[in-house]
């Protein structure tokens, strides 16, 4: 960290959907103090915003911080400057993925990927397929610990093994296609 830079990273973030508010932050810390998961963030929510403003691109994008965001939106509700931190953190996540950063100590990106994969395939989340995919690409042995939970869900009909597709799957495909176009254009 520390190299003085032209203000490229702040600009980059502010142009990503959700990142527009990054320049408005006055570092009051309300987001951190409102965050139920702040204690596990590598850098606190307000700190990660400060780091963006300090052009610490690598440190920000490789950090696990924003991946800890639970989308409870408490910070967004309370932020006195309308920074919309929740959206900002998700913008940082998408930038990190786009640029191939692998955050340490978190498998949240893998979870997200499997979630989206399941949606793209069926139009809805299939818990079984999503979690299988997740454990396969992280730690298959961890799945063993979940067997009793899985059994309970199965026996109550809460987790069908085969996924049903939604009606109008083709329409959803169109929506996703359009979304990708829009994001690509950014």
């Amino acid at each position, binding site marked *: 960290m520390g190299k003085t830079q032209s203000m490229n990273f702040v600009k980059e973030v502010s142009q990503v959907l959700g990142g527009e508010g990054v320049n408005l932050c006055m570092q*009051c810390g309300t987001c951190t103090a409102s965050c139920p998961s*702040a204690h596990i963030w590598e850098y*606190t929510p307000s700190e990660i915003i400060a780091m963006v403003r300090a052009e610490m691109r690598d440190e920000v994008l490789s950090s696990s911080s924003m991946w800890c965001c639970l989308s409870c939106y408490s910070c967004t509700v309370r932020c006195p400057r309308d920074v919309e931190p929740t959206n900002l953190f998700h913008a940082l996540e998408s930038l990190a993925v786009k640029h191939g950063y692998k955050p340490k100590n978190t498998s949240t990106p893998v979870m997200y990927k499997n979630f989206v994969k399941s949606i793209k395939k069926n139009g809805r989340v299939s818990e079984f397929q999503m979690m299988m995919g997740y454990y396969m690409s992280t730690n298959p042995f961890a799945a063993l610990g979940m067997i009793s939970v899985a059994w309970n869900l199965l026996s109550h009909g809460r987790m069908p093994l085969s996924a049903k597709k939604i009606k109008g799957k083709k329409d959803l495909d169109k929506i996703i296609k359009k979304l990708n176009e829009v994001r690509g254009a950014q």
Partner: protein
Amino acid sequence: MEEVRIGVYICDCGANIAGTVDTKKVTEYAQGLDSVVVARNYKYMCSDPGQNLIKDDIREKKLNRVVVASCSPRMHEPTFRRAVQDAGINQYYFQMANIREQCSWVHENKEMATEKAKALVEAAVHRVVFHEPLQTKEVAVNPNVMVVGGGIAGIQAALEIADAGKKVYLVEKEPSIGGHMAMFDKTFPTLDCAACILTPKMTTVGQHPNINLLSYSEVEEVSGFVGNFKAKIKRKARYVDETKCTGCGECSKVCPVHVDNEFDVGLSQRSAAYIQSPYAVPNKAVIDKKGNSPCRVACPAGVNAHAYVALISQGKFKEALEVVRKSIPLAGVVGRVCYHPCEGECERATVDEGLTIRDLKRFVADYEMKIGREKAGPAEITKEDRVAVVGSGPAGLACAFDLIKKGYRVTVFEKSEKAGGLMRYGIPNFKLPENIVDNEIEYIKELGVEIQTGTAVKDIARLFNQGYKAVFLGTGAGKNHKLGIPNEDNQNVFPALSFLYKINSGDKISIGDRVIVIGGGNMAVESARAAWRLGARDVTVVYRKSEAEIPASDSEVEEALNEGIKFKYSTAANEIIVRDGKVSGVKCISEEKGQQSAEFVLDADSVINAVGQEIDKTELPGEMAYSDLGYLQVDPITLESNISGVFAGGENVAGQLDVIASVAAGKAAAESIGRYLSGVDMREGRSDNMPRVSNIKKDKVKPKSRVAMPKLELSKRQGNYHEVDLGFDESTAIEEAKRCLNCAVCSECMLCEKACEADAIKHDMKEQTLEIEIGSIIVATGFQQFDPEVMYNYGYNRFDDVLTGLEFERLSNASGPTDGVVIKKNGEKPQSVAILHCVGSRDENYHKHCSRVCCMYSLKYSHLLREKLPDADIYQLYIDMRCPGSGYEEFYLRLQEEGVNFVRGRAAEVTNTAETPEEQGKLIVLCEDTLVRKKIRLPVDMVILSCALEPSEGSAQIGKVLSISKKADGFFLEKHPKLDPVSTMTDGIFIAGCCQGPKDIPDTVAQASAAAARALAMISMNKVEIEAATSEIIDELCSGCRICNTLCPYGAITFNEAKGISEINQVLCKGCGVCVSACPSNAIKGNHFTTKQLIAEIEGVLA
């Protein structure tokens, strides 16, 4: 027409214009335009050399028109007009092209901006050709000034002007001047006591010969124009004669009403009659009277329930009873049997439960009996006429009572052995003990009313012959309705009236075990309960309609059910079955809705007929007229019967009535009789529309249920007629009375009137309107504190010890609710306090602005806390410390030295959910210490919210009245944010203090002095110049349609009846042009904005 010779002057404005517009090119272009003799370009055209360029050209080149292309005319039009005038041509031969605000500042492309500048210049050149010479007018300035708002800003401005020898009207809406500053404890950074430095100024205002202090007043309307305003000022009714009041405060000591004290921001209570603060100016009491309380409005007999409840709440039981007796003599009776319409209207019901108003009235009556009643002195007989009242029921007694108080000699004739009518004979003792009735009749007798019992009166002529001048018939309805079914004349069938009469007279009756009562009114249920007490084991009330429709009161039915009385609803009695000459049962038919009717027999030993009463015509004088329903026919308002001088009311007119309704009828008759005997119109002003108070304050009331009436144990009720409702004791009565919301604030108990030795209390005072003439107005309406309740996460109003800044000011103030001791709600001293900055300020959700003073007053709080609680932990949770001002940064440093903990981070939440034992019972403030990037939880005993300053509630209204604009943040808009922060866009109206934006005391005082200086400058000039660009009517073209008359926003157009045309007052006209565009015959000319000029300008832009 003389040759037009135009000079065009293009200003660079340094780089402001020249940076974006190629002024050289524009100048060249202008040079080539028609009639342009000379075009020049200069760096600063507004400078002296710039202006001299123009003046010299006018003289040397014989110019007769001038165009300057520079900034906005708002900025420099007056400058250039003056220059043109100085050089000898009319100032209206000048036109300004704005190539700065409307061109260079808003464009980036130099080439296009230059083209636009050319067009704007060309437009001005085209237009100026058609300009006409106009003459400005001068009007005299009224030297009086009105200052609106009596906080420190208003006080300062008023004193400056008054000290300069000019007259000031200082208008303040509160009862005292002083504003927020009077509420403060100390002032930063020097820590002078706010009161110590403010009160000398307040007193000076109060005594200054040049200041007319109009406190408790509001500006309602302002008309006129600079130098000549007229204002209408509403002087709210103070209910205290300011000229007599000595400020002794006795009224406030006796006042039984207590409401939140605004001066202590609700931390203490004040009475309805009060003096705002110990240092109030004027030091005069005011009575806070909002109207009539709902309970009082609801009472048919006009008993002032609010007043006696308020008096009870203060333990003034005797005075409370006096209030009841102002209206009715029967407190103990009505306090037991009234159907209490007052309770139905009680506003407290919208919070939790209405007050038990009736039981409170009963309490004061009982209390008097308990401690022993002083004999009532005979009422003074002031009239010669005598009045006869026939019947001593509630209507007759109420009528007699009111008449003797009016000074008439009254005789009551009662056919029974004892007075009291149905109160004595129709209501059983377990509801209304006889001694209560005795006591109240005795009281009426002591007043001088003569009661002749055992005297039936049927001959009215004889009464008149005996010398009675008027008669009231309060004979009631003493005859039982017939059931109209077979065998109802059997000896075991009792009409309810005679049944109760016997019971109340102590006669023995044998009714057997099983009793059926037919009917559903209170009398039916009372009869059933009486039968149960007599020994009947199986008592059933048979009622024709459904449970929901039963007319008996809920409490009556409930008590009956408790006693084991059964109810058969939707059941009609068809026949009384008699066997061997005795009743054996009642044949009934049940008619439940939607079900087949079924006939059945209820076994019974006796039956009580309680289906209602009718009047006994044989007991009434023969000449009376009757209505279709069989009752006496009287005038509905005056209650006069078909015989002049004979009045009637109560059950003989309306059928079965509640006691209070009969009392009301008796009172109405007494009023009529009084008027009749003194020859006054009996109808005038008698419509009963007492207005009910609205906007009742109840948002901060903590729910508390009504007090339950203690009852006689069920096991002790049989075989006797002991009263069931036992009544309240003193502490319960006070507790219940304290639940009153004091809807109308002042209850009109009139204790203050008695207490005031100066005779200053005037409860019938009306609000007045004062009209004043002034030349200028200074608005100093201040601010209000942001209400943090909307920020749920800070817990204000949810947690006891979360305070606003103003609350802390009062808590810390020696004249505050705790005499300056800082304590928690539970009385303990706080060991730790957190002060939260920027509450509602710098927040997109509430106020974007920084409130400027919070950092400093928060530091002050820290200091006060450190002084009062040397060992307490004090935290300041700030985002940025903003301490710009003389001695301010030094004060910050001092507080750091005093060991206050500064945490850089805005609090996100205040919670009482403890996570560790240390947090137990504390308020926990959640924030991030952003300097070490750590989320922290601060457990503290007290939280102070440094709340934003926002425009005061009334400022929108006063802004409308004065036609002055607001900024986006709601504060008043100044003419120029930097160069003219004390003026408004309306000439002659100035602003000072926090109404223009948040500021501290030094800045407020400075601005107030500046505003005063501006007003004084106008006065010393003695006259003001009026813009000549006004509209005028061309007489020959005006058709007199008057469309313009109503459209003019300044009221400048009037219709000349003699000439049949409209006329414009040139002094009032602002030249807005509304009338010009509306005139259907083009008869109005908007000077300096004529059609010709405007068309030429447009053509110039498009050329």
